[in-house]
């Protein structure tokens, strides 16, 4: 599987040019590996024996019908799933080979390495733009005096928002448009210098132009971070990711280079889903 992922092959296995080269990869990015991962809400099992490798420095898209466990899966990658009442996880998730469920791991520190951006932009309502960006650092007590301005600018630039907000950093985050708010949330996630960015349908509340901005942003972040993005928009998955994982009923059905998965999936269930033959 991995060798195929690295081939970046399209259906024909021979394409070259910008459509294949478009997305940078960062060979030294943090890889993630799930091994026999199971997740439960009380008695209800929602992930079944998920084993997959997420390549470091690459963008991996997670697709699948509603309720198949996409959100649960990425919430297991930064130990957010277990925060729910009665929620449980078994199996292994390794970040660069280190088990994140080992007893010695501090979940709060882990979540700093593995940031999350949600479907609805959720800037802190009482905070201005600047404080929103710094909130992650402030909470974990890592904000050294004198660094703040630099971090705010760097994070907002990385989130492609700096030019739009540089003159109104003291205004409330909620005063921004939805797309700007989502980029503010990405800036907030980037401020703590994570290795991995998890995104759960980050564009589903945004209009096409705001969506294009986020997708462009993902392109610029690809290679610098390991990104896992859940999306219901297959064209979006096809555009922004190196690899795509298709989930069904809590199980991983197929993980393949995106260029291949959307042109020639191997599993007939993947084919049925992406061609719209379900239900």
């Amino acid at each position, binding site marked *: 599987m991995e060798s195929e992922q690295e081939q970046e092959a399209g259906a024909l*296995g021979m394409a070259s040019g910008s459509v294949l080269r478009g997305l940078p990869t960062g060979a030294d990015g943090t890889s993630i590996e799930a091994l026999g991962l199971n997740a439960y809400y009380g008695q209800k099992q929602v992930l079944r024996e998920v084993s997959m490798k997420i390549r470091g420095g690459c963008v991996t898209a997670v697709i699948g019908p509603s309720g198949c466990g996409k959100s649960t899966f990425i919430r297991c990658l930064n130990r957010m799933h277990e925060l729910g009442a009665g929620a449980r996880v078994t199996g292994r998730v390794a970040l660069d080979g280190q088990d994140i469920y080992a007893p010695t791991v501090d979940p709060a520190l882990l979540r700093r390495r593995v940031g999350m951006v949600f479907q609805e932009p959720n800037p802190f309502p009482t905070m201005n733009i600047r404080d929103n960006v710094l909130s992650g650092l402030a909470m974990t007590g890592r904000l050294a005096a004198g660094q703040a301005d630099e971090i705010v600018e760097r994070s907002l630039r990385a989130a492609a928002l700096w030019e739009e907000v540089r003159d109104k950093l003291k205004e409330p985050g909620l005063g921004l448009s939805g797309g700007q708010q989502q980029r503010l949330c990405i800036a907030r996630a980037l401020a703590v210098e994570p290795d991995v960015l998890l995104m759960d349908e980050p564009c589903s509340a945004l209009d096409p132009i705001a969506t294009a901005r986020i997708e462009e942003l993902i392109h610029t972040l690809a290679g610098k971070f390991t990104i896992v993005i859940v999306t219901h928009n297959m064209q979006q998955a096809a555009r922004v990711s190196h690899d795509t994982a298709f989930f069904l009923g809590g199980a991983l059905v197929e993980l393949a280079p995106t260029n291949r998965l959307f*042109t020639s999936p191997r599993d007939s269930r993947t084919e049925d889903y992406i061609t719209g*033959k379900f239900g």
Partner: protein
Amino acid sequence: MQRRHTDSAFEAELSELCERLVLMAERAAVMVETSVSALVARDTVQARQTLALDARVNRDELELDEMCLLLLAKRQPMASDLRLIAVVLKLVTDIERIADLAKNVAERVLDLNAEPPVREMEDVAQMCALVLEIYRESIAAFATLDVVKARTVIERDDEIDAAYHTLFRSMLLQMVSDTATVERGIHVQSVVKYLERIGDHATNLAEHVIFVAEGLDVRHRGLASQEGGSDGQ
């Protein structure tokens, strides 16, 4: 491929696209058939009728291209749907060329009818029957996405090539031995070349059937080498 699209309108649009392509392909087949029958019968009227059919095939090409563009824009197809539409865009070109070649055959009928009859015409008719049989097999392979049939078509292109070389050579010998036959001999050689090229387009059709059905590109590789193909697993 048995499962249907949840969106039945999309399902209907795709079937219509396939049916329209098959219709266009059959129209081109009829042109090949009538052009050669006009050739054998030395029938100028039938030759002119063949020429007239070309306009309809050209219209098919434009309409099918437009259907493909609209489907791409409206449906943003994936996987086998995407492969199908991409392939139809190419096949309309192949089929349009087949119709053009049939037209070229019909044009030669007009020239040949100004000359004395040619002895080899029965062999030309036989070669045409072979080409048509294989071309219609490739259409059937497309209509049912039958990869076994498609592979047979690809293999049988050698039969067409053999017939072409035999006829080409016997015309050449004829022309050398009797220079009075050179003009008609060259016309007949052109006709068999057109038929041979029709066979090549039928092969393209069959190769594309395999791509739609299996996502496997067998062009320029030959059927034998496909195991070592794109991405092993």
